[in-house]
């Protein structure tokens, strides 16, 4: 399989008045054509910033300080704004968390979809309109012609997110970055949206990075999972492997805290301690202060090692699996 996207040693830092926030601090991963990668982590772990870095949408005081982002072999980490504009929405598209906020409230749906096509292709408006209509049909919106004339506030949250997904697929991109696209929706609609997204990636061969804090969401959707903690990927591998036999203590904790039918009656596991202060990270492994298996060996920052077909950043991998 050829990689659509290869991210290598990506560091995105924010230079705030209070100090440097290393939101993304050395992230490596790749996504192959047609592959869905789940990027999982708590809020503040840097997963969304990773997504924005790929599109070059990091605003001051933040910037990409190091690393390569190779898209179809071309390094776009330091590419010009002009070059990035030709990629955004065209070859790489993005879907955001809150469908209430992502559509411009004063512009009609057709305006907002057609402009996404016209920004990249010289086609006439009629054709752009037809493509928009077909895209809405593809994501399961009934009577798309009427919906195109609507303003965002006239549609439900689920409907709006479908519009956003349809907009992302308009130009048949090679890669879609979905930043918690179902978090703001009801559970039943969540399932429908995941289903639509999955169907579309299969049909079009588009690769996808699905960013979420919810392991349960990506368990059934992603081919591979990367778990992020405090700006670094701590565990990365095939979905089944990561879910069934997590190696990193943080992944173990995350999985332990997911409620499920086969753990009924048991006490839910909780990761101890607080999410780290990004301005004042511990010297070694950032998870060590909350980790029950931490030792002195955790103080130099652990490097990446491959264990059981996975890349992990831990000196004490939990081979025995969940012991919690």
């Amino acid at each position, binding site marked *: 399989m050829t990689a659509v996207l290869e991210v290598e040693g990506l560091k995105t830092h924010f230079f705030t008045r209070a100090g440097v926030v290393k939101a993304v601090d050395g992230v490596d991963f790749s996504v192959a054509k047609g592959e869905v990668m789940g990027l999982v982590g708590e809020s503040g772990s840097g997963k969304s910033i990773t997504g924005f870095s790929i599109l070059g949408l990091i605003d001051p005081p933040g910037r990409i300080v190091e690393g390569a982002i190779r898209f179809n072999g071309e390094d776009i980490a330091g590419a010009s704004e002009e070059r990035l504009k030709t990629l955004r929405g065209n070859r790489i598209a993005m879907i955001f968390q809150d469908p209430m906020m992502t*559509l*411009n409230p*004063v512009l009609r749906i057709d305006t907002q979809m057609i402009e*996404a096509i016209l*920004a*990249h292709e010289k086609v006439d408006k009629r054709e752009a309109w037809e493509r928009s209509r077909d895209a809405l049909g593809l994501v399961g919106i009934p009577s798309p012609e009427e919906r195109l004339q609507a303003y965002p*506030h006239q549609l439900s949250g689920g409907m709006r997110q479908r519009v956003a997904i349809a907009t992302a697929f308009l130009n048949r991109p090679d890669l879609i970055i979905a930043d918690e696209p179902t978090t703001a929706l009801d559970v039943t609609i969540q399932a429908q949206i995941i289903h639509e997204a999955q169907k579309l990636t299969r049909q079009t061969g588009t690769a996808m990075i699905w960013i979420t804090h919810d392991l349960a969401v990506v368990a059934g959707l992603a081919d591979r999972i990367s778990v992020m903690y405090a700006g670094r990927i701590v565990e990365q591998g095939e979905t089944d492997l990561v879910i069934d036999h997590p190696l990193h203590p943080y992944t173990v904790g995350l999985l332990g805290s997911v409620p499920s039918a086969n753990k009924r009656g048991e006490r839910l596991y909780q990761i101890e301690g607080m999410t780290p202060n990004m301005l004042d990270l511990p010297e070694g492994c950032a998870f060590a202060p909350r980790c029950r298996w931490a030792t002195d060996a955790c103080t130099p920052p652990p490097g990446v090692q491959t264990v059981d077909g996975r890349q992990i950043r831990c000196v004490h991998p939990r081979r025995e699996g969940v012991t919690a």
Partner: protein
Amino acid sequence: MSAFVIRRLLQAFLVMALMSVIVFFGVNVIGDPVYMLVSPDADQAELEAAIARLGLDRPIWEQYLLFLQGALRGDLGNSFIFGEPALKLIFHHMPATLELAFSALFLSVVIGIPLGLYAGLYPDNPISKGIMAGSILGFSLPTFWVGLMLIMVFAVELGWLPSTGRGDTATFLGIESSLFTADGLSHLFLPALNLALLKISLAVRLTRAGVREAMGQDYVKFARAKGLSTRRIIFVHVLKNIMIPVVTVMGLEFGSLIGFSVVTETIFAWPGMGKLLIDAILQLDRPVVVAYLMIIVLFFVIINLIVDILYSILDPRVRLQDQGA
């Protein structure tokens, strides 16, 4: 939509009725109506005739009804000084005021919005900081003082522009205005700028705040993620959103421009209804004062009505809420 307009119209009538009561009682109860409405040089016979004509011997509510009757017929009494109907005088002076107010509104929009847009897009730039400092000054400086300084610098010291009067007018499309002659424009510029200054500051602040807020919104990030050009993001996505509050406020300010024109017209000897009002107050020409007050209230009511309707057209959310209600 029509239900919305009808409801707003009813509200407007209510306000007009209320204001007519206030102006009537202001003139007739707080002040001495004879003194207020009859020329000070009138003799005893004239005085008695006036009392009978104005119905001052009748109960107060009947007097109010008479006043209302006259007002509805467009009769608010004759000017003591000019001997003409007061309303006719006001309408005669109105075009000059409207011309001044529209020019000021135009200046504040074409100067204020671009400056505010720049200050909002590049908040840390020294030019933006200068723009904002200027807007604070624009808010603090009294209009009449700025007018004096404009006259002193541009008319007296530099001699570039005339300081008083309206200049030549020409008629175009049935409208007589100084906008259509070079001499008229040169007379118009300083007063219009003077009147606009406060509103320029307002437009700068409103636009800047709106741009700053909109730039942080997800829909702008989404628009950027779609690969749109910066121009389209700013002029379509951002500007269309902030135009709603800016247009509303600037529209509402049109009334205050007409109110403030009293000051500017006096300084620049601009022959509009504001100068007419001040002259009338100074010469105790009370029918003209009453007529001005009623007209200005009517103006405000109409402007509020127009802005409400405009707002509902610009913001689809307002329209829908009203349909649902």
